[in-house]
């Protein structure tokens, strides 16, 4: 088991190395003008300079903080509202269709509305992130509750569990696999919206710094920002799947 995952890791790294190699070959051959497309060495140099000089590091922290705050807000609101709607069959029938209609709205389209109400502020970006990342969690919770084994509702009734206990002890754990998958999706959306929000509202962070780099043809800085964004997304997703495996240990047993 351990050997297998080690092999998988090595193969994954090999693919990454190959990718960087192709990148280097393409830039060395100057297939695309270096003004727009820096090679891996220049990107790495910019990365090193940015992270040691401090500017890139603080910007990363700004973005990560924004992403996490928005994501946490979206998660709490999504799971909370989802529980309220999901626990009642009637509420599901009334509210779920409207939610399905609202969900496909691109969150970035909400930015002008958010700007109108909140101005170019950090709170505005936060609201946009929370609004956009809310949907997966909200709908996964509702669907998870709806998919709960009907027999368990009967068990809860016979045992005399209160509605709160049914939510906390039966419905949420039973919906947990769906909710955890949606949390990962929500984190990705949060990162995207954090960057878009920073670009549009010019708040400090990676989004703004990427935009600024691109406008002044500092393509190495631009790519350094993108690499960091990729790393942030990867680390976040990995941390969540680690938590997922721990929380869903009972599922591993079931298989």
């Amino acid at each position, binding site marked *: 088991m351990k050997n297998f995952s080690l092999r998988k890791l090595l193969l994954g790294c090999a693919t990454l190395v190959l990718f960087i190699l192709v990148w280097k070959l393409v830039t060395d051959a100057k297939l695309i003008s270096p003004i727009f497309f820096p090679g891996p060495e220049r990107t790495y140099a910019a990365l090193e300079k940015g992270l040691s000089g401090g500017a890139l590091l603080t910007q990363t922290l700004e973005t990560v903080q924004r992403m996490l705050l928005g994501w946490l807000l979206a998660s709490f609101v999504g799971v909370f509202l989802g529980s309220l709607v999901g626990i009642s069959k009637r509420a599901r029938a009334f509210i779920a269709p409207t939610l399905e209609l609202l969900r496909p709205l691109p969150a970035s389209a909400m930015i002008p509305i958010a700007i109108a109400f909140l101005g170019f502020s950090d709170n505005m970006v936060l609201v946009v992130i929370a609004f956009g990342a809310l949907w997966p969690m909200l709908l996964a919770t509702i669907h998870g509750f709806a998919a709960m*084994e009907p*027999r*368990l509702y*009967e*068990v*809860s*009734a*016979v*045992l*005399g*569990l209160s509605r709160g*206990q049914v939510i906390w*002890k*039966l419905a949420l*754990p*039973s919906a*947990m696999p769906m909710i955890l998958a949606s949390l990962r999706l929500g984190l990705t959306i949060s990162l995207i919206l954090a960057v878009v929000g920073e670009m549009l509202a010019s708040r400090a962070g990676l989004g703004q710094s990427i935009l600024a780099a691109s406008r002044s043809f500092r393509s190495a800085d631009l790519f350094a920002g993108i690499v960091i964004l990729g790393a942030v997304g990867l680390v976040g997703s990995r941390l969540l799947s680690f938590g997922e495996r721990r929380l869903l240990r*009972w*599922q591993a*047993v*079931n298989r």
Partner: protein
Amino acid sequence: MPVTQLSTRLPHGAAGSAPAASQPRIRIRDVTLSYGPLQIIGGVSLDIVPGETICIIGPSGCGKTTLLRMLAGLAQPTSGSVELDGAVIGGPNRSVAIVFQDYGKALLPWRTAAGNVSLALEARACPRAERPAIIRELLEKIGLGRHTEKYPAEMSGGMQQRLQIARCLAQEPKVLLMDEPFGALDAMTRQALQDEVLGLVATTGATMVFVTHDLEEAIYLGDRIVCLQPNPGRVGRIVDVRLARPRDQLLTREDPEFLRLRRELYDLIKDDHQ
């Protein structure tokens, strides 16, 4: 033993004038149940005295399970009433526990054996500090003492059904309802569980209503056997089981009375199937 069985049954015959102490634990009065134009139960009346074990048999579709669900408060009669200790059963009630046949769906897969039993204790607000001792005692009583930290998926069908029974006992019910609980288990496990359930009922003094399609199981467990007839479900006959207790898988099943009852019930059920 048979003498006391008889004496607990006697007040049943004289229900109207019986003193409060021997009033029926469960009284089913002229119960009917219809879904739209379809009548499932058509007028069932039955009194069950405390401590009695009633087995309900009948062909499929005769409303055995529906009747049990009404006793659990999970279904409401269209007319008539179901009473527990003189009070109408208006909904699910902690003093009436039910063991479902599909243990796999009734247990919480994300909780261990101990956690599943704990759910019943949490529901009745049993203080946290007292729970571990109660859980341990119940699981030992039902033969799961060494498996408290196992998840249901790590257990055999027989163990899972034991666990469901343990959870029902944690409710401290007056009435234990069993909906074909051993139908999905192999013969040996079934017999072992039959004896354990009889032991539990004897020690706790609980009243049991046991639905089964297995005639021998009904005779082996019951004080009385209610034969339901289908379309719509109604009581065909009530058969008294005068077999000594405690019962024994070999001796009881070889008893001439056991064999006579088996023949009698077989003929009854066969007629319904024609």
